[in-house]
């Protein structure tokens, strides 16, 4: 099977010349649920942000299925992507943010139906139907007419998950979905993600420090360090018998928290 995501020798530098990813190779197979873990600043979120077209790359090629994301094939060679190409490619990918980023000027329902109507071209009725199903799945039907500012962090994140799901992405990414939440809200949100993972045949890429959750949801855990994957494998193996010293150190630290 061909991978849904391929990073081929990708280098990402920020304007101040900090190198975040250096010659980075990475693949995700369809249906895989991959967790990225590692110290902060190691480039995990950057991987997600590149796939969401929020950060560009300097070298290498990123493919979504067979098509380059940040490049376009022109006359047989690869040229930097136009906004039109990025718009087309973005349709494959969805993202849930650490700080939810719900639109405060819209009700919960409108947050979810706005893009399906105006980007995917669904009718209002179809979009509402889709939204109501998702609201039911994330347990937020009662809040469909509420505004985000009246909701708790955990509720907001569940809405944000429904909003991303409503676009039916092939790849859904979560960027530390629970790190901005009060501890008592974390469980609910993780439960919702786990449910989605079991009910849908979704490919997921998740940055999280929640080890129990990673163990339950992931097929593969990648330990990320200094812009590369130091060690990866099934969660059981990474968590119980990591071979690299840096991985062992990191896991001890996270467990102590």
């Amino acid at each position, binding site marked *: 099977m061909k991978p849904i995501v391929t990073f081929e020798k990708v280098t990402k530098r920020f304007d101040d010349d900090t190198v975040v990813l250096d010659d980075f190779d990475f693949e995700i197979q369809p249906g895989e649920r991959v967790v990225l873990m590692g110290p902060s600043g190691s480039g995990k979120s950057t991987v997600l942000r590149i796939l969401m*077209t*929020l950060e560009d790359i300097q070298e290498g090629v990123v493919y979504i299925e067979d098509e380059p994301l940040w490049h376009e094939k022109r006359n047989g060679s690869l040229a930097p992507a136009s906004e039109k190409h990025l718009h087309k490619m*973005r349709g494959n*990918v969805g993202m849930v943010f650490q700080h939810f*980023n719900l*639109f*405060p000027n819209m009700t919960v329902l409108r947050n979810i139906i706005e893009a399906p109507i105006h980007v995917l071209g669904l009718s209002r009725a179809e979009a509402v139907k889709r939204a109501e199903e998702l609201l039911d799945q994330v347990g937020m039907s009662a809040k469909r007419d*509420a505004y985000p500012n009246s909701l708790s962090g955990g509720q907001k994140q569940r809405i944000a998950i429904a909003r991303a799901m409503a676009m039916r992405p092939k790849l859904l990414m979560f960027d530390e979905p629970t790190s901005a939440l009060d501890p008592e809200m974390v469980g609910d949100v993780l439960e919702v993600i786990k449910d989605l993972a079991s009910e849908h045949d979704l490919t997921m890429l998740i940055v999280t420090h929640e080890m129990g959750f990673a163990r339950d949801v992931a097929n593969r855990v990648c330990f990320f360090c200094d812009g590369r994957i130091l060690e990866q494998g099934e969660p059981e193996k990474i968590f119980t018998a990591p071979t690299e010293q840096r991985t062992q150190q990191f896991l001890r630290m996270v467990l102590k928290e």
Partner: protein
Amino acid sequence: MQWIDLLPPLLRGAEVTAWITIASTIGGAILSFAAGIGSGARFAGWRWLARTYVQVFRGTSLLVQLFWIYFALPVLLGISLSPTVAGVLGLSLNIGAYGAEVVRGSLASVESGQLEAATALNFKPVQTLWRVVMPQALVEMMPPFGNLVIQNLKDSALVSLISLSDLAFQADTLRNQTLDTVPILTLTLLMYFAMALVLMLVMRAIERYTVRLSGREVSR
């Protein structure tokens, strides 16, 4: 002359002032949004045009701008402008330049996470602007816009110098005719103040509307 006799000519002037203020506030608002949005446009030509306009009209005197539009522009273009058109045009261009900075700053103040979410949902830039950014930015614009509108009302007195018979013009004319300086100028001040009060109330109503639009204050 009795105070009561002073009222009709002053009210006629106040009416002119009111119309000039309303027209130039609307004109200024349109220019504010055009230049404020334009200064963040992707196309460099728009950015340059918007920023040049703002710099030129903020950096020169309103009185000279009015004189230039009324006396110099017709010579250059070979047309004639009525004092009303010249006055409204001058005030609009001037207040629009200040308003553009308010619009630009308010748009920029919307959290970057909102833009990222809009990108993640694949909104086009225009959709992001009108559906996400603008409804949240409007509420930030309102207090400074309120100041600008009142500023505009007071600045409109300068149009009397290009022979428009607004409130300031009528007051000055009456004063020359009757020499009743104290009642005339006192009434004139009161009339300006009354109009400013009305403008404040209108702006506050719009502000309340934009607060609702932004979702900041919510009925649960």
